[in-house]
């Protein structure tokens, strides 16, 4: 196909630069992106990455570059993009401060296994180590928070290093990769030999060979179980194994509870979905963790927020742990049978061997606990008696309006726990949150990226009055590029989660949790974003509907109770069975 016909038929079709052409390192970076199917880059230019941005000038037809307002916003946006699209997020940043601003996002992506490729500019190779302008030792700063990183000083390395970067970021247990490219390598003209995707690195085994004997042992345990219980995490989503997972629980009849990273992998209203695990999870799943006889953990890593006190966690149970990362097996909870592998492969093998069963009495126990929780926590929160609005009723109204089809992006804190507890989901890759790192400021930029990752879907960001102020500058990105995200600020005029802890465990000594807010409506209007504030219940549904129906971005500030707490709660240092309803 000639270039001319390609251009006329499909204007955005890219004709790859043929091998044996001389090109610059910068062009090689962009060619690599296109070969890897990248369509969106979140970035911010600067001195040391200028040659790449210069090359980008000729690639704007093929690569959509979103100019963020801060590099942290860029990387969180790339995370949001990766999480809704299932693809690898891509970030550009310059050297020095540009690169150091990525660190929080890298740490977040590392702990939440989000595939990212970040390209940072670096000073000329001959200036390395001389304290040159905007020089920082980015490789060593980012080593603990990247799955892999590499510094390129010669353009000849660029094609295969980027191929490696995408392969490592997206395979096995995904994670962030950072490639630091010195300015001379970006400028250097070299004999391009074409781009070849990487599919093998001899020292890297992303997918272990599945060992059938463990599958058989796991199936035997499950088939003998009286009270089996499934815990699932993000591994199901990352492994694109939602169907395999559903087939497994539906055949085995085992009730399943999720970690917040696993949320949305199974529809909320699925009869075997018994709810959320962990510190602010549901009553039944926490209590019954310490009552089940076989615990089947799928693509989750027994975070301390899920397990509570470890030496009192599921001690009575035989544990089957399915994980792609061998380092997770026995890390926190000793497994009886480790099923090391990709759950997309292991689950169907297991499903084949398990008996078709139902556990009506066992499931009834979950329902009983659910009833207690409904009475004591959920109903009072969803339908409060007083005039003061609660976060839960906002979620309830939102569920009604979206039917559970929206992507829900949250920040970190009370609103996050409430959103995860109450938001309804009908499809996977719909709950975007900072789980492991708990990064305040994640919500707004992640929502922008989530929208680019799933442009056809409604994306609703739910953010507290603390978190929004950490990355509020990204309203500028929305203003300029028009990402139609719906932003709900649940304003309780406090750093609510810290306040809750100070109330419960520090004698109500409210130390610096009283945070004031700007006039968010004025701020939004300043960015030319439609906005509205809701202070009374009567306006809530109407305002939410107006927000969702609005063509474009919208900010809705909702005033909620100042000192409401999130319950149930497993206090720190307590066992999951000691979960408190109030």
């Amino acid at each position: 196909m000639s270039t001319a016909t390609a251009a006329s038929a499909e204007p955005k079709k890219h004709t790859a630069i043929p091998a044996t052409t001389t090109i610059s390192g910068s062009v090689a970076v962009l060619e690599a992106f296109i070969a890897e199917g990248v369509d969106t880059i979140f970035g911010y230019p600067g001195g040391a990455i200028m040659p790449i941005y210069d090359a980008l000038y000729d690639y704007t037809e093929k690569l959509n570059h979103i100019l963020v307002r801060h590099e942290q916003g860029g990387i969180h946006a790339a995370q949001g993009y990766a999480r809704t699209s299932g693809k690898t997020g891509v970030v550009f940043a310059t050297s020095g401060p540009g690169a150091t601003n990525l660190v929080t996002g890298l740490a977040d992506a590392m702990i939440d296994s989000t595939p990212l490729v970040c390209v940072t500019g670096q000073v000329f190779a001959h200036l390395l180590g001389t304290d040159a302008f905007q020089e920082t030792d980015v490789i060593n700063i980012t080593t603990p928070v990247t799955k892999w990183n590499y510094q390129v000083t010669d353009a000849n390395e660029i094609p295969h290093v980027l191929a490696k970067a995408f392969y490592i970021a997206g395979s096995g247990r995904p994670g962030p990769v950072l490639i630091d490219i010195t300015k001379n390598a970006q400028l250097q003209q070299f004999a391009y030999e074409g781009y070849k995707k990487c599919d093998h690195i001899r020292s890297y085994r992303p997918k272990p060979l599945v060992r059938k004997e463990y599958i058989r042992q796991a199936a035997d345990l499950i088939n003998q179980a009286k009270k089996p219980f499934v815990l699932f995490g993000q591994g199901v989503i990352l492994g694109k194994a939602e169907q395999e997972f559903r087939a497994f629980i539906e055949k085995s009849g085992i009730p399943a509870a999720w970690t917040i990273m696993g949320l949305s992998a199974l529809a909320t209203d699925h009869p075997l979905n018994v709810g959320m695990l962990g510190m602010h999870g549901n009553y039944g799943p926490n209590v019954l963790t310490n009552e089940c006889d076989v615990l089947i953990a799928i693509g989750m890593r027994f975070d301390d927020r899920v397990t509570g006190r470890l030496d009192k966690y599921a001690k009575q149970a035989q544990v089957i742990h399915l994980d792609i990362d061998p380092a997770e097996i026995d890390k926190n909870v000793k497994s009886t049978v480790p099923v090391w592998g990709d759950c997309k492969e292991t689950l169907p093998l297991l499903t084949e061997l398990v008996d078709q069963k139902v556990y009506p009495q066992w499931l009834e126990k979950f329902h009983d606990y659910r009833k207690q929780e409904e009475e004591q926590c959920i109903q009072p929160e969803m339908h409060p008696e007083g005039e003061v609005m609660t976060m839960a009723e906002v979620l309830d109204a939102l569920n009604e309006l979206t039917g559970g089809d929206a992507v829900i992006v949250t920040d970190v804190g009370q609103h996050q726990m409430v959103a995860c507890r109450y938001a309804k989901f009908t499809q996977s890759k719909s709950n975007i949150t900072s789980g492991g790192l708990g990064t305040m400021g994640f919500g707004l930029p992640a929502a922008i990226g989530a929208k680019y990752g799933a442009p056809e879907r409604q994306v609703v960001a739910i953010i507290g009055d603390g978190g929004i102020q950490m990355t509020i500058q990204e309203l500028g990105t929305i203003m300029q590029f028009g990402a139609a995200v719906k932003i709900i600020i649940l304003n309780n005029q406090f750093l609510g989660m810290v306040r809750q802890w100070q109330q419960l465990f520090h004698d109500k000594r409210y130390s610096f949790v009283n945070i004031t807010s700007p006039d968010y409506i004025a701020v939004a209007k300043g960015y030319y974003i439609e906005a509205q504030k809701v202070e009374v219940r009567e306006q809530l549904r109407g305002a939410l509907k107006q927000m969702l129906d609005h063509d474009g971005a919208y900010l809705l500030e909702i005033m909620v109770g100042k000192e409401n707490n999130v319950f149930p709660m497993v206090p720190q240092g307590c066992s999951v069975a000691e979960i408190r309803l109030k």
Partner: protein
Amino acid sequence: MKQEFTITVYTENQIGLLTRIAIIFSRRKINVESLNTSPSEIENIHRFNIVINETEEVVKKLCRQIEKQVEVLKAYYSSNDEIIWQELALYKVPTDQVAEKVQVERLLRQYGARAVVIRTDYTVFEATGHREETDKLIEILGEYGLIEFVRSARVAIIKNSKGFHDKIREFEKQEPGEEVVENEYLDKNESIFSM
């Protein structure tokens, strides 16, 4: 119970890998007693020997974290009775003292030391052995005016290892066989699988 373990790591030769491995220990506030990097029996494959004092459970987890690094092929851990190991030490002592006191020479022979350099002002001895042996010699030479002392990291050979020649061939294959993907640590501990 904490005891001395030697971790043997086979890796690619890559800048920055030393940091990646070192921070696995420092992040967990674990002191590295000794660390040596050297070529291995395979061209272009490096071999780390790391000595730490920890419980077997911790060492097992550390090995998995090390193996998780992209450029690491394999990490093994061994207790002291599973390896042959040596450390090399250099001692600088005043030559006049050595020459005058015949006893020193006898001691050196007893500890398998040899003179590397003999000058009029000082002599440098070398000894290889286990920590206790090279330590003993410090004590003794201290009495004869030991000027300088240095000791290398531990280098260790695993007694029942067949080397890495066969393994590396497996790694080079696109689809590795059981050899490479076996979870050796889990297999070691058969009791966990009893049902």
